[in-house]
């Protein structure tokens, strides 16, 4: 079970794609849903939103940046090796409906999550304007795939090595000023989602964000993933992972994501020694 059948390195090896055998999940998964993965018996359970599924082949695809102990372990696994556990599909699927003109904003590995949602929004008949951002051109992923499912594609890089020199929010402001947009979907680093939501709130455009807080079980059991949305506590695993971007308390989310920072360092040190 959970054998890696395909592996790709992206963004100079900092981002890895795994296509994993998980037939029960593959026939069920819908855009926006996530899985929990565990590399080995002593590993931690890590939530990742699926980048793709192939129900016929019985596989799911995840794309992750190597940032800590668990993603390092994931990244070290070769084709043919198996994950110890993959659980899903978890969370609510994206509500895909024809709205008219929509904007999909992606940053970093958030682009991987954004891809199936963008494709879905396109398939139901929306005109899709996509804005992708990354630190530089080498770290940008899935540009071609996103181009295929978008009517218009904008690229932004922090260093100007490709496309617009600056942030996704610069382009977004432009688009919102010129076009009649009915929905914005933003998936990426927390600050990106926060600033996108601030801008769309000014123009009162419905905005969806996908959150990835710390979780253990992913089924509503632990409450570790709680986020404040419109003053109410929600569990990202079962109430989300997508929420109204205008209502999310991003500062609380950022802080909670740092909960285990000292332990993460300790864990990584041990990992490197081995």
């Amino acid at each position, binding site marked *: 079970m959970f054998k890696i059948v395909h592996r790709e390195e992206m963004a100079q090896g900092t981002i890895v794609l795994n296509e994993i055998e998980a037939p029960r999940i593959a026939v069920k998964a819908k855009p926006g849903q996530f899985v929990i993965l565990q590399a080995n018996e002593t590993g931690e359970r890590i939530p990742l939103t699926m980048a793709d599924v192939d129900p016929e082949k019985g596989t799911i695809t995840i794309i992750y940046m190597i940032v800590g102990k668990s993603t390092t372990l994931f990244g070290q696994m070769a084709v043919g090796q198996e994950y110890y556990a993959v*659980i*899903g599909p978890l969370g609510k699927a994206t509500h895909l409906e024809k709205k008219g003109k929509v904007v999909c904003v992606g940053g970093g590995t958030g682009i991987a999550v954004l891809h199936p949602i963008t494709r879905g929004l396109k398939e139901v008949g929306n005109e899709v304007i996509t804005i992708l951002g990354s630190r530089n051109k080498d770290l940008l992923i899935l540009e071609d795939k996103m181009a295929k499912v978008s009517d218009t594609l904008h690229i932004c890089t922090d260093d100007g090595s490709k496309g617009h020199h600056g942030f996704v929010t610069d382009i977004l402001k432009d688009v919102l000023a010129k076009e009649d947009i009915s929905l914005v979907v933003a998936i990426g680093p927390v600050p990106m989602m926060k600033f996108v939501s601030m801008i769309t709130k000014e123009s009162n455009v419905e905005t969806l964000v996908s959150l990835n807080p710390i979780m253990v079980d992913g089924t*509503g059991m632990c409450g570790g993933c709680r986020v404040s949305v419109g003053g109410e506590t929600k569990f990202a695993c079962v109430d989300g992972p997508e929420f109204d971007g205008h209502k999310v308390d991003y500062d609380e989310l950022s802080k909670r994501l740092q909960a285990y920072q000292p332990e993460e360092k300790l864990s990584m040190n041990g990992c490197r020694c081995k």
Partner: protein
Amino acid sequence: MAETKVKKEKTPRVKMPEQAPDVRNRNFKEVPLGLTPEMAQLEASRCLQCKKPACVEGCPVSVNIPGFINKIAEGDFAGAAGVLWEKNALPAVCGRVCPQEIQCEGRCIVGKKDKPVAIGYLERFAADYARNSGEATLPKVAPKTGKKVAVVGSGPSGLTVAGDLIVKGHDVTIFEAFHKTGGVLVYGIPEFRLPKDIVGSEVATLEKLGVKIETNSVVGTTLTVDELFEEGYDAVYVGVGAGLPRFMNLPGENLIGVFSANEYLTRTNLMKAYLFPEYDTPVAKGKNVVVLGAGNVAMDSARTAMRLGADSVKIVYRRSRDEMPARAEELHHAEEEGIEFVLLTNPTRFFGDENGRLVGMECLKMELGEPDASGRRRPVPIEGSEYRMDCDLVVVSVGAKANPLLTNATPDIGLNPWGNIVADPETGKTTKKGVWAGGDIVTGMATVILAMGAGREAADSMHKYLTLGW
């Protein structure tokens, strides 16, 4: 006969050898050490072998208690385990976590004048002996019936159903959401109260009998109850527990350092965070820990915090000592280990620092008023009694609700207003044909043995259905 009776009355109840409190409160090894064969035989000799044993009536799964104790008295320890297994798939677990004082031992005739026979200790002894010696005789499996049963959830009720129905010749598959089998026995109850290799060994026994286990399967999302029927299952048992933590909805509850007991215990037990960094999952280690609530889960959380190295651990409870719902033994063990009880006290809000980390909480003192619906005296706040208590870790242990993942995906299963599945109290039958339910998903949070009792009744009813019809 008369002669032996006289002798029996003279033998005092055996004392369970335990790790000393000041040693055990810093390790995760089991607290009670178990009886020696000599101690067990002597204790077994205290049993009167009643013709109409009240203890059996007090047992939710009707274990033949005089029968297994008699085997121990005779020195046939493996035989004693065989008698236990006739009625109980998990004797090594029950011998450790059952509230015997209100069940079998609470009804023991010896206990009327003396202390009751230590039935729990003896059950544990026989089960441990059989496991360690490998002398256990597995129950006989009836000829295959060709019927397929799906058991959803591998906690105590699911394991009981699986054990009962495999022996009756049905084909049984357990679906477990986590990567490990055992439900609350592995994620909830700590290692020092129930070593996980014991749960593993009880599960292995079921597998030897032919039970199949599919881990990483969340019924309700990975697959649905209806899909189980489509896959050819003839009957489904739902024992998914009470897996949705309650919070108190107080300001500051989302600060880093405030955890549900579910998260705190799951990280520590299932994910083995007490062995971090050998295991990758961390758990917050508080210096000044507060546990809110006073049930068994609260005691488990408090004792875990102490073992993880806390300087001080407080149980903060809004009622008084008499209303604390935890088992007497758990309260006793917690106190021995240096857990402080702060009674008639309720938190009103949590304080954090600039990084969103918990630094303290505001409490209000309470007094007891008139009895409420539960029959317990209602705690009433004393006005103006607010004070600040410093703490860097709070474990909220005020109960759990029904998890809606399975029931949302099974619209034709009847629920009560709290989201618990409605099941016939005698048979466990739900409103959906071919589906039974039991344990915490039906009753709300209760005990391991009550869940097992519900599993036993459901298994009987399922067997009838599979052989005779609905």
